[in-house]
């Protein structure tokens, strides 16, 4: 991603889906992720934060992260041997990106 300027941008990648472990039927589709460099900082906490945290949070982190702000479903058709073909499978793709909230679940 070295060519990227700061900010949060669409980044294409290929996803391959297989119908089973042997890969009998499979399909590949180009979808988008969001990748980028958003601003974040960390600094000494205000006294009110220190008191509220019983003096455990002496650092405050203020940050934004690269997120998917708009997504869409795309259908991937799985091709099978001898012309049989499975139903289509829906996957997500990013349509727009934004520096926004870092998610607490993995943040």
């Amino acid at each position, binding site marked *: 991603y070295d060519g990227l300027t700061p900010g949060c941008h669409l980044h294409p990648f290929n996803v391959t889906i297989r119908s089973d472990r042997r890969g009998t039927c499979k399909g590949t589709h180009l979808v988008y992720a969001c990748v980028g*460099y958003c601003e974040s900082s960390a600094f*000494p906490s205000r006294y009110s934060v220190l008191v509220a945290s019983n003096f455990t949070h002496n650092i405050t*982190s203020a940050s934004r992260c690269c997120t998917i702000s708009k997504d869409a479903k795309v259908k991937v058709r799985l091709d099978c041997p001898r012309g049989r073909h499975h139903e289509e499978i829906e996957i997500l793709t990013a349509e727009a990106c934004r520096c926004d909230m870092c998610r607490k679940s993995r943040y």
Partner: protein
Amino acid sequence: SEVCVAVTTPLHGFRGCAVREFSFVAQKPGCKGLRITTDACWGRCQTWEKPILDPPYIHRHHRVCTYNRTRQMTARLPGCQPNVSPLYHYPMALHCHCAICSTQDAECETF
């Protein structure tokens, strides 16, 4: 990775996480405030969200610029009441890095 940024470096295109000068007013009840200039962390870490096939359907990598190594500093606040300690402790950044914000020892704010 360790990155040093001189004051004159243009920051609009900076990527990475570095020690940067930071000023704040140290205040607590019963004392007057004191402006302190110290070292804190600032930067732009690589973050991403990528669609995946299985739940939760989005794979996130949200790392933020935060303290890696610190030195505990102590300032003496002016004008404190007799029953109030004038000592004010705060961290100074020695080294910063891109990492998960730990709610164990930091106030994680995001917006």
